[in-house]
């Protein structure tokens, strides 16, 4: 269809551009403006803008096929040819930059004939099956044929052609039908420029040219990561979503936010009625600018999976069958259990866990329920086990518990330091942006026991890998800072004007000590002093040095110390407070930033305001109408300990699978089994729900309204596109529970919850749904001082005034190797699966990763006679599990690695309850283990299998019938 530029249709937050239009070539970053005349219309555009884009900005759409505004101009289709006064011939407008005073003609008889001739050639080698083609209704080739007025093909259709080319259906989500291909190279360029994988190429020359994946392999066997950029770029139906082939073109769409990782990509959910046909990354989204990964783009089928819990259920005991009941009955049952528990064991005997997958509004409501209706502060969230040290460490040093930059900031970084993170797998869309910058020549420093894929960025610049021993991060960051201080690489002007002198002097004296030198630390970290010095210089002398870190920093016994060490390093080098620099935690889950912001932690009310502060409590008490406990509550591991001790008896868990994701599974299972009442609200019967007494159906992100906050503090709208399967959005369920407990809540829409958040949270005072709809998204702080939000933080000062250096003494983890446990296990993620896998395991993503494996170095494998694919028993001080071996040189000898996406793998059966000293964040990244060949699953796995089967039986109506007598007896 033809698109006409209509300023009134411009979407918010897009700088006046319409994200639904393709302007042909990317914007020019130039500040200088030039004036051009296009078909008599004069327009001023930035210098360097293409004629094609300038025309589009003037509302004139020049036909094009190989151009797209997310790709550099290519100039191959020649359809965008124009006439320029004073120039000979017909230059391609996509590759021709504007010049001052240029006069362009986009339409005349000659141009029309030229374009028609080109289309005639294209169509002479293209199937004429438009009526039955899946792209019908959304085909650029068809549109351009219409636009140029193609009426006949003089060449006929009998000549040599590509119409018999075979379709590649290997990818589960899209098909590749080369018979429809016009070889415009958009897919190849999208794979290179947008995604940065370089999996596609044009093979052959001339008439033989064709798009090929990898070494002319099926897509699934190639390096393709199934991000969908090629599918989106394709102007025909060559690369086409299978869901569209099945369902036909969608008829309406809604812009919403992905519920996978902390990048928080904006998507258009394209619908047919209430059926989601496809998710298309939204160009107007400021986190992703129209890019996506295999999870957000394709792995949404879990929302309509048969395993969804569709009705509320209750049971008296965890070995009893589930009884399907009405919402009212389930809520009353749960509320009575909670009241009875408190009556019997006291006010502090119950608590709850907020969800980092749910919306800000839902998270806010759960912690409010706990503080106001339960009357205690026993609230925590999954950030406990991932980024709680970020909260502690950043608040202590730079005064705010959040990353300092936008994602876009990386485009101005000269040296990018990645510590304990694996962006290409865990934050893929941001990784593509990083790779873009690496291709432009930025230096990459990776501090990680594993050789991550970012180091193999095609056409990347200089890359340094510091493969340190797990558990020695603090030793490493101290050594880096030592080099900065002793080699005169400090930014003294920044330190003097922005940092507290007393803390700085203390720190400086400490860090300059010989024991922190790279030479002294070499024995601890295992990384050569020379390499450490080189890395420190590359960061400090870069101009702009930016640090990105993940759970490889936080999930250690010194996680908080390491976060402070990173902040020290950034302050010492003045790498904070402008674009291109900063300290950036890469958040794991979609709303883990939000769940922390919303007061999920037991010691903090929303906005990181301590419960011990009487003035803070007074403001909340005034609005909430209750007295708030002035003491912090229990954190998740403390809840487990108290449950086993018998003082903590009931728990409300919303959207969090603690039985799979928390360490030392057997300990968690004992704790959950000790509860008198466990209320689980989730979309599936997850591992935790198998220990529950009340199961409340959750709603997916497609079924509710609200907001998520991503890793760059960006608050994005989540918009409902289909009805919740069980009738209620999650916030409505929490509200019902609160009302049943006697604490009234009466919100009619999540926007009213956000209004309350804005009243009580100083960094949110300017946030409203109206503003979010108007601006598209907002990065907090958003208040009187920053009415439109704050892309870059700490530009002038810190929320605590001056920055506070912290002394970061290296204290070795107590989790040490010995003769019995000679290897160190570290854990991580892979691209296709997400967290505990509850969602992605129920999609075709499992084709890429159907089981967790143990990666082991060839030398460790040889020592144990282990071959690829062998079953390996992995034992730690707390448990044993069995995984298949994969021989890998990504880690150094002595280190083994696995993922935790499948519950039966039992990765967390072996992780211990060793934790961060400041926050109790578990030390997932360091577990001393032994590995040996075995022939059968571990005892825990065999038990898991039985328990899992039994719990699924208890869920089916047949079981309820068969077990009826049993159930009555239990009541």
């Amino acid at each position, binding site marked *: 269809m033809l698109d006409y530029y209509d300023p009134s249709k411009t979407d918010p937050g897009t700088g006046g551009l319409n994200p639904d239009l393709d302007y042909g070539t990317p914007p020019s970053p130039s500040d200088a403006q030039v004036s051009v005349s296009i078909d008599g219309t004069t327009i001023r555009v930035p210098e360097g803008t293409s004629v094609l884009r300038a025309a589009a900005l003037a509302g004139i759409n020049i036909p094009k096929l190989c151009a797209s505004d997310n790709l550099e101009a290519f100039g191959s289709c020649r359809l965008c040819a124009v006439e320029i006064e004073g120039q000979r011939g017909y230059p391609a407008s996509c590759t021709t930059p504007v010049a001052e005073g240029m006069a362009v003609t986009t339409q005349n008889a000659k141009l029309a004939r030229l374009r028609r001739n080109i289309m005639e050639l294209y169509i002479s080698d293209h199937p004429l099956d438009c009526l039955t083609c899946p792209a019908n209704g959304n085909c650029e080739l068809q549109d351009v044929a219409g636009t140029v007025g193609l009426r006949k093909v003089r060449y006929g259709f009998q000549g040599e052609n590509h119409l018999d080319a075979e379709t590649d259906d290997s990818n589960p989500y899209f098909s590749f039908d080369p018979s429809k291909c016009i070889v415009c190279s958009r897919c190849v360029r999208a794979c290179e420029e947008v995604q940065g994988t370089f999996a596609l190429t044009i093979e052959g020359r001339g008439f033989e040219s064709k798009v090929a994946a990898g070494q002319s392999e099926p897509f699934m066997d190639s390096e393709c990561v199934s991000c969908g950029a090629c599918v989106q770029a394709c102007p025909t139906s060559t690369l086409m979503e299978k869901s569209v082939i099945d369902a036909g073109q969608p008829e309406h769409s809604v812009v919403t936010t992905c519920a996978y990782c902390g990048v928080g990509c904006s998507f258009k959910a394209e619908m047919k009625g209430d059926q989601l046909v496809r998710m298309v990354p939204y160009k107007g989204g400021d986190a992703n600018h129209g890019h996506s990964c295999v999870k957000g783009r394709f792995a949404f089928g879990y929302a309509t999976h048969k395993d969804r819990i569709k009705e509320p259920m209750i049971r008296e005991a965890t070995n009893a069958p589930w009884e399907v009941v009405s919402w009212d009955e389930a809520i009353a049952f749960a509320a009575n259990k909670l009241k009875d528990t408190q009556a019997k064991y006291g006010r*502090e005997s119950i608590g709850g866990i907020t969800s980092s997958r749910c919306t800000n509004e839902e998270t806010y409501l759960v912690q409010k329920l706990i503080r106001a209706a339960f009357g205690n502060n026993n609230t925590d969230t999954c950030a406990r086990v991932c980024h709680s040290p970020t909260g502690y460490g950043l608040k202590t040093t730079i005064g705010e518990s959040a990353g300092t930059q936008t994602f876009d900031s990386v485009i101005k970084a000269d040296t990018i330091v990645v510590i304990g993170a694996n962006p290409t797998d865990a934050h893929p869309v941001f990784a593509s942006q990083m790779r873009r910058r690496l291709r432009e020549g930025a230096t990459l420093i990776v501090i990680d026991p594993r050789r991550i894929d970012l180091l193999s960025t095609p056409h990347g610049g200089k890359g340094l890998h510091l493969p340190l021993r797990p558990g020695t991060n603090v030793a490493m960051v101290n050594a880096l800072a030592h080099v900065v201080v002793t080699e005169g690489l400090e930014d003294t002007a920044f330190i003097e004007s922005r940092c507290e002198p007393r803390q700085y002097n203390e720190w400086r004296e400490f860090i300059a000590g010989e024991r922190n030198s790279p030479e002294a630390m070499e024995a601890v970290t295992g990384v050569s002093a020379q390499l450490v010095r080189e890395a420190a210089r590359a960061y400090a002398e870069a101009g702009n040095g930016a640090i990105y870190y993940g759970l490889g920093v936080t999930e250690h016994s010194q996680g908080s110390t390491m976060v402070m060490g990173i902040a020290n390093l950034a302050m010492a080098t003045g790498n904070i407070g402008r674009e291109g620099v900063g300290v950036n935690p890469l958040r794991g889950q979609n709303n883990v930033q939000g769940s922390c912001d919303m007061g999920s932690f037991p*010691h903090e009310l929303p906005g990181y305001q301590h419960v011990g502060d009487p003035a803070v409590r007074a403001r909340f008490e005034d609005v909430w109408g209750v007295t708030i406990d002035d003491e*912090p509550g229990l954190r998740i591991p403390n809840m487990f300990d108290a449950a086993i001790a018998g003082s903590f008896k009931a728990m409300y868990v919303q959207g969090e699978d603690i039985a799979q994701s928390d360490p030392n599974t057997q300990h968690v299972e004992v704790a959950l089994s000790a509860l008198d009442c466990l209320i689980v609200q989730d979309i599936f019967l997850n591992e935790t729900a198998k220990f529950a007494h009340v199961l409340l159906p959750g709603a997916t992100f497609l079924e509710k309204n609200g907001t998520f906050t991503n890793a760059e503090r960006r608050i994005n709208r989540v918009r409902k596109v289909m009805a919740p399967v069980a009738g209620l959005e999650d916030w409505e369920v929490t509200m019902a529970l609160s009302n049943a407990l006697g604490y009234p809540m009466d919100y009619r829409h999540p926007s009213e919850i956000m209004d309350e958040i804005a009243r009580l949270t100083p960094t949110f005072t300017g946030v409203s749904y109206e503003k979010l709809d108007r601006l598209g998204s907002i990065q907090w702080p958003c208040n009187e001082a920053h009415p439109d939000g704050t892309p870059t933080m700490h530009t002038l000062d810190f929320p605590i005034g001056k920055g506070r250096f912290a002394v970061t003494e290296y204290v070795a983890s107590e989790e040490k190797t010995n003769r019995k446990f000679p290897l160190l296990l570290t854990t991580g993620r892979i691209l296709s699966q997400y967290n505990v896998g509850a969602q992605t395991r129920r999609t075709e993503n499992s084709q890429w990763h159907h089981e967790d494996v143990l990666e082991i170095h060839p030398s460790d494998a040889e020592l144990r006679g282990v071959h690829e694919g062998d079953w390996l028993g992995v034992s730690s001080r707390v448990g044993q599990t069995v995984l298949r071996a994969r021989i890998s040189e990504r880690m150094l000898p002595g280190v083994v690695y696995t993922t935790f996406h499948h519950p039966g793998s039992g990765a967390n059966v072996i992780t211990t309850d060793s934790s961060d*000293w*400041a926050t109790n964040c578990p030390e997932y990244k360091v577990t001393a283990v032994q590995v040996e060949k075995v022939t059968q699953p571990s005892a825990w796995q065999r038990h898991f299998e039985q328990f899992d089967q039994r719990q699924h039986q208890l869920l089916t109506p047949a079981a309820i019938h068969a077990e009826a007598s049993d159930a009555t007896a239990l009541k």
Partner: protein
Amino acid sequence: MSDQQLQHLIKMVNQISANNLHHGDAEQSAEVIATHLRKFWARSMKQKIIDYAESDGLELSTVSRLAVKRLSEPQEA
């Protein structure tokens, strides 16, 4: 009361101490540690560690013991 719970609390407070030995002398470190416990530990956890310190306390490191003693003293708001 579970021994395991107490064991975890002892381990935690000793760990906090081990990471905060750089704030001047033992008394100053103890104050930093006590402040940390006040800010981040639940009421019941504080009470348990205080009870333990008063009744036995042998597994607490020296600085931990000083810190828990401070924790048990009344605090100005």
